[in-house]
């Protein structure tokens, strides 16, 4: 972003990478898939790079409003200084908090989740998928991230992307507004679960296995971790792949 401004340019969108997308090895692959798609479509975009900082989501969900607001106010200062108008996020938690909770602190932007943005690129004809891509006819199920689905009522965008792959979209018994959490939300990602008789991601993996899907798609780096672990625990690593919708599209478009 700083480089772009130095050259006197303004991006059309700011790509908010998020902490997972920046530091988590698996999530970095999602980041790269999104960048490939943006480049392919000649989108003029920027990232904040080292000027980006945690949105404060895990702190807020864990009850620490101070840390959250400190982060939020600092981020908003940076975003407003660059006069950012539109933000694409790679994570439903960043998406939710910037879209819904930053406005109250003076941060007003148009915020979309990457599944929605990629969908609009396809709808505008900027990205075309040759039919008969690598996923043609394969069984894919979609795990709704809570903060994308129930949290913000976005159910269709990721599903439409899967349908573009000419793949067979199969739904789990608990899907859309009835979808079961992967177990990572509310800062659970960063702590051990309370005592119980099962891990939530294992319960969710059973739903996936039941569909007989070969691929479980998601749209959240934390769901990615949880589902990958769940599939591993269920000894289904060879049979079920966990991929982000952005990766599916990037692979199908041969990027």
């Amino acid at each position: 972003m700083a480089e772009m401004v130095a050259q006197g340019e303004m991006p059309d969108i700011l790509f908010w990478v998020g902490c997972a997308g920046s530091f988590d090895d698996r999530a970095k692959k999602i980041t790269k898939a999104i960048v490939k798609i943006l480049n392919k479509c000649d989108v003029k975009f920027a990232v904040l790079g080292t000027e980006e900082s945690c949105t404060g989501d895990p702190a807020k969900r864990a009850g620490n409003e101070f840390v959250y607001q400190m982060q939020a106010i600092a981020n908003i200062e940076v975003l407003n200084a660059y006069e950012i108008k539109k933000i694409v996020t790679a994570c439903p938690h960043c998406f939710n908090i910037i879209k819904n909770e930053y406005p109250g602190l003076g941060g007003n932007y148009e915020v979309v989740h990457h599944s929605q943005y990629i969908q609009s690129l396809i709808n505008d004809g900027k990205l075309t998928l040759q039919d008969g891509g690598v996923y043609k006819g394969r069984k894919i199920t979609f795990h709704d991230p809570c903060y994308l689905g129930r949290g913000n009522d976005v159910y269709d965008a990721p599903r439409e992307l899967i349908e573009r792959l000419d793949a067979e979209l199969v739904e789990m018994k608990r899907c859309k507004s009835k979808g079961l959490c992967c177990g990572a939300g509310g800062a659970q990602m960063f702590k051990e679960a309370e005592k119980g008789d099962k891990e939530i991601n294992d319960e969710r993996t059973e739903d996936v296995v039941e569909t007989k899907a070969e691929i479980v798609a998601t749209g959240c780096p934390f769901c990615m971790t949880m589902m990958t672990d769940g599939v591993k625990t269920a000894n289904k690593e060879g049979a079920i792949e966990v991929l982000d919708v952005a990766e599916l599209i990037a692979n199908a478009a041969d990027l």
Partner: protein
Amino acid sequence: MISILIFIVLTVIGFGFFGWNVSKVRANILLGRDLDRTDRKAERWKVMTLVALGQKKMFARPIPAILHLMLYAAFVITQIELIEIIVDGVTGNHRTFFAALGGFYTFMLSFIEILSILAFIATFMFLARRNLLKVPRLVKSELNGWPKLDANLILIAEITLICFIFMMNGADEVLYNQGQSHLAGEGSLGLAMSSWIGPMLFGNMSLDTLHIIERIGWWGHILMVFGFLNFLPYSKHFHILLAFPNTWYSNLNPKGQFNNIDSVTAEIKLMMDPNADPYAAPATDEVPQRFGAKDVTDLTWKSLLDAYTCTECGRCTDVCPANTTGKLLSPRKIMMDTRDRLVEYADGKRKNGKDYDDGKSLNGDYVTAEEIWACTSCNACVDACPVNIDPLTIIVDLRRFLVMEESKMPSELAGMNTNIENNGAPWQFSPADRLNWKDE
């Protein structure tokens, strides 16, 4: 004459006591913190019509939805008959509306009778679901004791009420057949159910017995109604009334959105403002509100209204990922605890004066930290609730108190917060490495 007097006295007591209880509940709810939920009125009416009146969210589970609809429809429509009973009671007439409405009267009462039979069946099915089939969400541990009894009592009361209706109508039907009813005329009242239930059950009885049965049915009905009315404020069945305001005041924002605490914003702005005078007195001399919720009065009035509205149906707990994987957390229990504690708190203050402190609080004594920390904030409970209750807001407020007032949290989360403060990420990575993915 005497019976008119008794009736009027009973009616005044019945409604009066109910009114007094409602005003108490209202005062309890208003102990909560302020929250403005009066915007977007058109949308609010729509939500209330769909969710409360239309029971839209019940139909996610069709079997209980249909059974519940039978009871609900019968309940609403029986109110017409109740109005007649009250008019008769005050005037001393018998079936005041019969002459005035003619054929429509027969139609209306027949309609009530058919719905009552459906409700009768539904009530038995509900009893069976709770006590024989033991549907999992209806037998969880938080229902042990009073909540279980409450549910069964109401169902039994409903059965009794319906029996009274048929005693009243059935006996009167037989009397009318013989030209002995207090209603002038002779023949059949033409009531869909009573015109054959009546003769079947009471056909061979003497006139005196028939009159007694008819009166038992009549008085029984009205007494049950007053009893029911006054039971409501102590019961989960209060939802039949509170579902309406509770859905009207629903949260209309995206479910993922949590509120920003304004006092925190003010404090941070002050901290970051280089011109601020750190010793300046706070602008108001009000006691600063604590962060988050220690007790019920730290919750918003909407959370307290939620608690009184809860039907204890357990749809929330049934979909809760924490609960379904064996954790202690149950969103239904959060709502029940909030209500129980609110009643205890408010009664304590009423009895022992304003300054009374029983040393207990919702956070800790009712809801434990283990429950509070098991929530993934997934909003499944909020989505599932048929009357738009929001247990998650309470859980988050309880968390905020633990973290911001008591610094009590799982140690990993304390570490996570420190990481965010120091590195701008929940993990221990250097902010300088944020763009490394670009070249990897």
